[in-house]
């Protein structure tokens, strides 16, 4: 079967654009929200906006930490509520 195909693939072609990485992580955890992501205001608290719960939060953060190859300590969570905050935090900057 092809169940393993996606993992090595995404690792080989690591997503470098932080915004894409963030949106992909959200879509991964909550596929049904994907249509809403394009219109997401980058300065709004998207956790609340998209009604993501603590389990979703942890899942998205775990994916981002893995993708970005760095830890995201729990104490940083409160200042990581918007796409722009996350983008800056993950090193995108621009």
């Amino acid at each position: 079967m092809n169940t393993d195909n996606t993992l090595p693939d995404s690792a080989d072609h690591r997503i470098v654009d932080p915004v894409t990485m963030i949106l992909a992580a959200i879509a991964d955890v909550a596929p049904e929200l994907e249509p809403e992501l394009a219109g997401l205001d980058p300065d709004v608290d998207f956790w609340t906006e998209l009604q993501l719960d603590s389990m979703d939060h942890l899942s998205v953060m775990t994916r981002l930490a893995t993708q970005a190859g760095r830890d995201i300590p729990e104490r940083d969570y409160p200042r990581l509520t918007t796409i722009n905050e996350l983008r800056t935090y993950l090193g995108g900057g621009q």
Partner: protein
Amino acid sequence: MSDPTDADPAFAGYDYVLPSLGADMDEGRVVEWRVAVGDTVHRGDLMAVVETEKSDIDIEIWHDGIVEAFLVPIGELIEVGTPIVRLRSIESGAASQPHAPTPTQPAPAATEPGRPEPARPAPVRSQPPPAGPPPAGPPARPDGQRVPASPLARRLADEHGLDLTMLTGTGPGGAVLAADVRGAVPVEPLRLESPRRRTPSTMRSLIAERMSRSNREIPHYHLARDVDVGRLGSWIAERNENRPITERLLPAACYVRAVALAAARHSEFNGSWVDDHFEPADSVNVAMAISLRGGGLVTPHVRAADERSVDEIMSTLNELVSAARSGNLRASWMTGSTITITNLGDTGADLVHGVISPPQVALVGFGRSRQRPWIVDDLVTIRPIVTATLAADHRATDGANGSRFLATIANHLEHPEDL
């Protein structure tokens, strides 16, 4: 006629019954056949899609054989234990061969021997719903014999849709024991397949049916208790500080652990109300209500949660939530829950007066954590407070037991270092 007495695949024939896909499921309907009459089928093949109150579930075949007949019409609401498909062995040849009507199948209505079609299952809608899951003991076999088996073994076999005559008993006089049944339950015989959700309206009507039944039959009583979760919060934060993100805890895992420990101690809240009496469960399988974004919810469980660490529970919860939301729940997670938790989370309401999932007798609810004025050592201070609630079955317990049960849960959460 001779019974197939061992699990040899060369059995003479077999009626598959509708299995229970959760302690709270006692009826369902076949919505699609994945096989046709005359098909040669093999163990593991998909047989049918069964609609339960919360999702569609694929049912697999456990033996090689030839499909001889469908025993229920598509779409009809039938009780758990109703035979749905008749298989004959590949070796047994012609369809005209007399068929042993699997007398020990826990069918609600005994089938007349030799009759080509079983009696139609009782029309569930036209009579009062059953007071619990199907009767623990199957009706007497038409030939008057009964496979020796413990009541628990019968219940388990019933739940898993297993034929007791197919099992080898290790008890006195060859009696089938619970362990024999457990050993025979195929690993993941049933599973939910990739995203295939109920439409919200169907899910709604099924939840409506289920919860109406609960409110009609179970005399609920409700208790509440405020829990200071300040220490729990710091304990979790401290722990998570030194851990990689993949090993971090959420309060939900601690709730499951606290309820499991309390349920193990107050066993009168851990089990089922069946046939007018309470049957304590022999393990603590804590179901967690998980809401689905499309609407509705599912309640898979953490098995033997009282014997697992919070870290193990956390990792199981991660697995359950992601499986629930992607539509990949395994049937083994849905079967055999003994108590349920509903956790509103930090975006939820302050407290919940829950509705018990029959045949369970208790549901523990946790509201959001909120900053409240709180008195510690005669001083008013601000603490994070979670209101824990208990909805319990008054047939099984009283408010006094319930208060002690809630107090034990609160005590565990207030002393997280012992969790």
